[in-house]
């Protein structure tokens, strides 16, 4: 009897797992997909928001693709409980599905602070396609949008809001913006840049309630003035969708604890993406990154293992990039390790900043901020990722980078980083072209 694989969740991790199983087995096994939503990519929703892409562009598979891949689908259905001993999943409509192995890839959801008015009409999250549609319907040129929260996700939709002709105010309870993406000096630079580009930023302010006010929303804070908004976006954090696993006996901390094959405490139950607490490639510690590249790599490694290969995962690299008003902001690895030796470089006239973090003569993390039009910014973004990822020893180049933190290329090349990287692949074989359905490609 062919193996019966069950994939729960049709986001980045789930879809990459399905595609990889089919790359490996050509259709020999049974695959069943259970997902609350149609397969799409959350992280391109900002480009749908500003209409630079059509809604159809966000989908990563259609019914036809899934049929082509011989995937049985339960779309619009939610996983309700897992019997890890009996190898069955129960859906919210009461149906049960038996599996030989399964992948839990149910991602995260947006959460809001429990303050009065947090659920009023006109107060939105921006995490799902449905929520994106609501925000699109609510913004018009000249609207005043108040973004609650100044983290990475808030920043991914900042350009879109501005390009729709809305006025934007960001309110953040922490004393500064982007607390989990860049250090304080970097945040100051980005903050100044945004103010220069017409964004109002209020940091260190605690939102206490939201009230309806004649078609608008009034935001009240612990101290200071109130704000009147046409639309409020709550970018106040996310939480992995794990509640339905309560009682399953699967070991969880912040996420599902997984080994180097992404197996949970039940060996035939894998977890990947935002719900998985897997190995960080730099620190070796278990962590929930909740980023796209980690979900993609998790999904592919799980897919290969489900298909019968033995693929160990080296761990994932925390990394983010966001562009705001043509300023690139990126960070990699352990950029926030307070104990690491760090070099910084600042070019205030170009709004450019670098931070390089070290363990001995290996780079363990980096922050890079610079104008998108500065050629060396994008050039160095990749090379710094390569240095952190490969963990090559930089020897005398370390001293060079202390003096010249913006001169990364010669250090990268002469440290034989390319040689170290070339043999590396995630699945132990060359990657294939991601097969996208003709209907999705347009």
């Amino acid at each position: 009897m062919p193996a019966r694989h069950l994939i729960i969740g049709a986001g980045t991790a789930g879809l990459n797992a399905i595609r990889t199983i089919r790359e490996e087995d050509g259709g020999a096994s049974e695959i069943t997909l259970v997902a609350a939503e149609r397969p799409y990519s959350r992280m391109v929703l900002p480009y749908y928001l500003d209409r630079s892409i059509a809604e159809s562009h966000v989908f990563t598979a259609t019914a036809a693709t899934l049929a082509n891949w011989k995937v049985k689908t339960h779309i619009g259905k939610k996983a309700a409980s897992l019997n890890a001993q009996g190898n069955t999943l129960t859906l919210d409509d009461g149906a049960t599905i038996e599996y030989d192995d399964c992948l839990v890839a149910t991602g995260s959801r947006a959460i809001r602070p429990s303050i009065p008015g947090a659920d009023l009409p006109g107060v939105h999250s921006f995490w799902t396609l449905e929520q994106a549609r609501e925000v699109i319907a609510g913004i018009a040129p000249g609207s005043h949008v108040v973004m609650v929260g100044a983290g990475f996700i808030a920043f991914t939709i900042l350009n879109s809001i501005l390009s729709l002709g809305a006025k934007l105010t960001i309110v953040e309870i922490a004393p500064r913006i982007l607390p989990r993406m860049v250090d304080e000096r970097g945040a100051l630079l980005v903050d100044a840049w945004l103010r220069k580009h017409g964004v109002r930023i209020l940091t260190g302010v605690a939102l206490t309630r939201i009230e309806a006010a004649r078609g608008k929303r009034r935001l009240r804070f612990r101290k200071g003035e109130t704000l009147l908004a046409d639309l409020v976006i709550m970018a106040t954090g996310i939480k992995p969708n794990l509640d339905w696993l309560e009682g399953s006996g699967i070991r969880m901390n912040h996420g599902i604890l997984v080994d180097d094959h992404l197996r949970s405490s039940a060996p035939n139950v894998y977890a990947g993406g935002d719900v998985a607490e897997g190995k960080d490639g730099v620190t070796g510690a278990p962590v929930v990154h909740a980023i796209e590249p980690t979900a993609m790599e998790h999904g592919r490694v799980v897919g290969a293992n489900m298909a019968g290969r033995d693929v160990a995962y080296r761990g994932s690299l925390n990394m983010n990039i966001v562009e705001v008003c043509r300023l690139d902001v990126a960070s990699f690895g352990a950029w926030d390790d307070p104990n690491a030796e760090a070099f910084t470089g600042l070019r205030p006239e170009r709004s450019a900043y670098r931070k390089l973090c070290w363990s001995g003569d290996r780079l363990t993390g980096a922050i890079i901020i610079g104008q998108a039009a500065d050629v060396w910014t994008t050039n160095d973004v990749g090379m710094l990722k390569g240095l952190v990822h490969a963990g090559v020893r930089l020897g005398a180049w370390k001293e060079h980078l202390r003096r010249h933190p913006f001169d990364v290329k010669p250090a990268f090349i002469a440290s034989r980083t390319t040689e170290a990287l070339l043999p590396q692949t995630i699945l132990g074989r060359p990657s294939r072209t991601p097969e996208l359905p003709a209907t999705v490609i347009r």
Partner: protein
Amino acid sequence: MKVLKIVPQKCTGCLRCELACSYMQTGSFQPAKSVIRVSPYEGHTSYAPYTCTQCAEGWCMTACPVGAITITPAGAKDVVDDRCVGCKLCTIACPYGTIFYDPDTHKAFKCNLCGGAPACAEACPTAAIVYEEAETCDWLADFAVERSTRLLAVGGP
């Protein structure tokens, strides 16, 4: 597979590859839009071009959330402009620093081997860039190690 083999010892730093590349990729001569980039070594006494190796993993390709990067018949990883949303994820996924973002078009761009007839190799007068059947490798490291001793000793570029 045919690859761009780089012989850095032969490079004179004439930058014709950058001009040819940008002309082929964008229709105008603008080295900033070239995807092969020449760097100086040892205080501008020698030079070497650097570009995408079309690596086996295809870090840019696997990272793209919308499958906008595909493998061409020539074996190059190439950005499909209509699919690319300009999210830049590929630029941080690529560990070689060889995929770029064009702020004018809002798209990623990279070496696509010009469909199997790379303009850089055709333009190079000294055969420092040749397009031939070979196993791709780290073409520059030995050269760069040898030509950086002075830089490291005096501590300045």
